[in-house]
């Protein structure tokens, strides 16, 4: 027995050494790419936040690029939900990927390379092909830090079957929130087990600002003050409107983003970005997309927040020229077309050539884009957005959580005071 034990131990130790040795050799081979063995090819790391679903498509596109290039080789790294942690850790140790998807410029811009000079070299037409509004979302202090690669605005999704069941007309681009409220009430009444409208309990403060904009107010005023802006009557009006719908039982506040409730037909309407189009289509749901309703008393069209993602280059990258080549490829026309199913193209030329304005699902997002230019999110303006955003999120929760449903004015006054 002891002999066997001894053998097991010795074998284990040997195996350990051997295997880690083997591991070493394998890795040494691939890692030394940058260090001179393969002088010809420059290696670029490209990080994306897509999850496994879209990975195959992405990898193929990367492979195509590599095949077309003599000098550059790109490796795709996908991190899904933990993207931020990974990028932070990378930047913190000055080892961020060369090219990365980026949306949170205020937080990360210090680790990014300014792209102004690269853009200038491409000539004046380069910028024009992109939707104008997007540049503001990819810059800090007038310097561009990311080339727009995708975007979404938010639109109203609605379940056609439930509308048919309740016998109501589908929403149109001219709707006001009062129209929506009426429809939601009717559906809740006539369709068993379904609510007319849903929105998130933990509303993302970044997104939520669009409702305030739609009603003519915002989180902050022109001087950056919360007081008088976030707790202005117009702001309070917005929150109370949503809260009312919950109190009247015609809307439900969801734990998640609301897509699951949409998929299981528990809600007839919700507002979201274009991210769920693919999923809902796959489910076979009979749905439609339309612009966000306007606030009747505001006298203006509804406004949406822009979630724009761009491709950035790390400030610490050792191969910025090569990285730029890849960025151009990934944000170019071909790729805009290739990713059309899950990322709305940012190039005017592609929208035209693919006739996206005729696509019933995609067109509303572009209309919202056009309605929404000229607004800058507070997160881009305020330094301490991470703290403010946290406070805002907590206050929204207090207002929208069905267990609390606190008085709106009180909560907003508290936020303004901090």
């Amino acid at each position, binding site marked *: 027995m002891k002999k066997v034990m001894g053998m097991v131990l010795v074998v284990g130790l040997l195996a350990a050494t051997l295997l880690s040795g083997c591991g070493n050799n394998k*890795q040494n081979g691939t890692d030394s790419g940058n260090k001179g063995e393969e002088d010809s090819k420059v290696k670029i790391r490209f990080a994306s936040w897509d999850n*496994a679903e879209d990975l195959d498509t992405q990898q193929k596109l990367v492979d195509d690029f590599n095949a077309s290039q003599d000098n550059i080789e790109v490796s795709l790294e996908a991190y*899904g*939900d933990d993207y931020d942690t990974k990028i932070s850790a990378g930047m*913190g140790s000055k080892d961020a990927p060369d090219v990365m998807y980026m949306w949170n410029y205020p937080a990360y811009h210090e680790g990014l390379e300014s792209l102004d000079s690269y853009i200038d070299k491409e000539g004046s037409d380069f910028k024009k092909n992109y939707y104008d509004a997007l540049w503001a979302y990819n810059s800090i202090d007038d310097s561009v830090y990311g080339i727009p690669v995708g975007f979404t605005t938010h639109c109203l999704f609605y379940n056609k079957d439930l509308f048919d069941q309740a016998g109501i007309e589908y929403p149109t681009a001219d709707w006001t929130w009062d129209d929506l409220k009426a429809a939601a009430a009717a559906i809740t009444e006539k369709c068993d087990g379904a609510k007319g409208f849903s929105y998130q309990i933990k509303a993302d403060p970044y997104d939520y600002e669009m409702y305030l904009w739609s009603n003519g107010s915002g989180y902050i005023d022109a001087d950056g003050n919360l007081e008088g802006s976030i707790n202005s009557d117009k702001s309070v009006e917005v929150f109370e409107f949503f809260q009312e719908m919950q109190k009247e039982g015609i809307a439900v506040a969801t734990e998640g983003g609301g897509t699951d409730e949409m998929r299981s037909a528990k809600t007839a309407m919700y507002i979201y970005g274009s991210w769920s189009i693919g999923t809902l289509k796959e489910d076979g749901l009979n749905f439609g997309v339309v612009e966000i309703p306007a606030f009747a008393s505001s006298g203006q069209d509804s406004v949406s927040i822009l979630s724009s993602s761009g491709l950035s280059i790390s400030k610490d990258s050792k191969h910025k020229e090569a990285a730029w080549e890849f960025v151009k490829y990934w944000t170019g026309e071909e790729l805009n077309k290739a990713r059309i199913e899950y990322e709305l193209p940012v190039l005017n030329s592609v929208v035209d050539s693919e006739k996206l304005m005729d696509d019933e699902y995609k067109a509303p997002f572009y209309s919202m884009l056009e309605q929404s230019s000229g607004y800058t999110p507070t997160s881009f303006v305020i330094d301490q957005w991470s703290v403010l955003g946290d406070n805002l999120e907590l206050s929204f929760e207090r207002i929208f959580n069905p267990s609390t449903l606190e008085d709106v004015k009180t909560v907003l006054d508290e936020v303004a005071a901090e």
Partner: protein
Amino acid sequence: MKMSKKTKTVLYILLGIMTLYFLAPFIYMFFSTFKTEAEAVAYPPRFFPEKWLWTNYVDAWRSQEFGTFLWNSIIVTVCTTAGQIIACSLTAYGFARYQFKGKNVIFIILLSTMMIPWDVTMIPQYMEFQMLNWINTLKPLIIPALFGSAYYVFLMRQFLMGVPKDFEEAARIDGANAFQIYYKIFLPILKPQLILVGVLNMLTVWNDYLGPLIFLQDRSKFTLALGLASFKGVHNTQIIPMLCITVVMIIPPILVFIFAQKYIVEGTSGAIK
């Protein structure tokens, strides 16, 4: 030890309740792996899938390079388990059966290493591994473990301290040196603990995802746990592939556990005699 019928019944009821708590989520999960995504989030929840989509498993496995992930997981698990068993038993033995200067101080330091929240040493560790050029290799996941971790040292030390002093005395009288005493007398007594540590380590490493997340970059180096986490996207979670892979990932540890049970159960009475 005979038990009355009443005791037995009570026992069975208790077991039944606990089983429900522990097993029900998994049964539900298992059945759900055969559903479509829409079915999985349907309400009221359906227990059985409408159609048994066995292909879900195939799709899930093929959606990423799980074959490579499996291999990486195996390498890391086997190496670290062997290393931990050896290193921790040696260290624990030193603490448990000897008196030496500084013992308590060093032991306190050992314990305290278990108490540091990882997210803060994470970045300094990343920097250190970067200097060593170990980032994007499996080395940060394997090599530190070869020196033992506090948790298992602590575990084994506790047990070793429970063995009466007479053991060494007898062996020393017979003229054995320190290493022989460790090797021939205590190691066999420690066998159940060694297997226990092996099983525990295997599980921790098998499911560890923070380590691989931080230290690996290339998908070719990913472990299974990291592949699993990739199903969790920013906007939606692909729940079906995730459940499928989870089920697959459970199988090796369970097999190891079942296999190891025999050794853990074996009593020490033989050795003592």
